[in-house]
């Protein structure tokens, strides 16, 4: 599966890693919804590190759609919440 880290690029991840990543991802969502900024930042970095560790980077000129997308490492909780809001990632 192709995962994009915003601002960094894409990596290809083997399915075997998703159980662990899913756990971190759900945790991240819970922290975001609960407004736990420090927890959110910690989990986000853990998730990104895991993706980078397990994933194989795709070349910059590769043309493959991403199936999963992660915020950039410096994204704040508010920014991510905004991105997941009505306006979404691409302004209408």
């Amino acid at each position: 599966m192709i995962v994009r880290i915003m601002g960094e690029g894409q990596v290809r991840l083997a399915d075997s890693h998703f159980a662990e990543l899913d756990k971190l991802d759900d945790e991240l969502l819970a922290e975001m919804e609960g407004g736990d900024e420090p927890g959110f930042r910690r989990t986000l970095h853990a998730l990104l590190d895991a993706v980078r560790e397990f994933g194989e980077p795709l070349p910059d000129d590769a043309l493959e759609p991403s199936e999963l997308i992660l915020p950039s490492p410096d994204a704040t909780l508010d920014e991510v919440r905004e991105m997941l809001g009505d306006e979404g990632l691409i302004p209408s």
Partner: protein
Amino acid sequence: MSGVMKRMGMLFRAKANKALDRAEDPRETLDYSYQKQLELLQKVRRGVADVATSRKRLELQLGQLQSQSSKLEDQGRKALALGREDLAREALSRRAALQQQVTDLETQHQTLQSEEEKLTLAAQRLQAKVDAFRTKKETIKATYTAAQAQTRIGEAFSGISEEMGDVGLAIQRAEDKTAQLQARAGAIDELMASGALDDPTGMAKDDIAAELDRLSGGTDVELELQRMKAELAGGSTQQQAIEGGGAQQQPQGQQPQQAPQTQQPQNQQQTPPDFGKH
């Protein structure tokens, strides 16, 4: 999986689709271009059919003229046998005019046949081009679909502005248009190269040529008269020689050049050059 990763991915795809819906779709342009090429191919095919029809019509006319020509020859022979040299002269005179028409029609027929062959070849080449374009079109469409989605992702996440996206679309449109124009220009080149755009019936003659033909026709009448007289007189050796020569000469229209050497070096042969000077 229902975390941030998944939600962002789903949300992005939904938004990207919505954004793409609003953009002009160059794939439609490709399909339109292909449709136009098919219409052009249809026109070329109709052109081939038209030329073939004209050729067949000419063949019918030729057949009729040749039949009339032999009928007049028979009439001339009968008239001469009955001692009516004036009638025989008239019949042969008419026959000479017909022979000239036959020669003209044969030339036209050859031209049309050649046009038909070229046009058929052009249609085949165009067909191959259109087929190739169809394959390329489908490839471009598929590539475009993938590239467009990826371009949108790239735009959104690497901070490239919307203008860049528009430039990408503009380039795509330009490429499509170029391909379309190239295909059309190629087709027109084919037609021009094959000569299909020329008028195959432009066979008009000038006055001098017409006058020369008339005089040459007169000479033919005299020659025919001589030949028939010889035939009636029963000079078998001479007759065979004349007939053998005449039979070969007629279809190629070479009588005025060859016949006088054996039979008629007289006054009328020298007239055409005088006309040429006027």
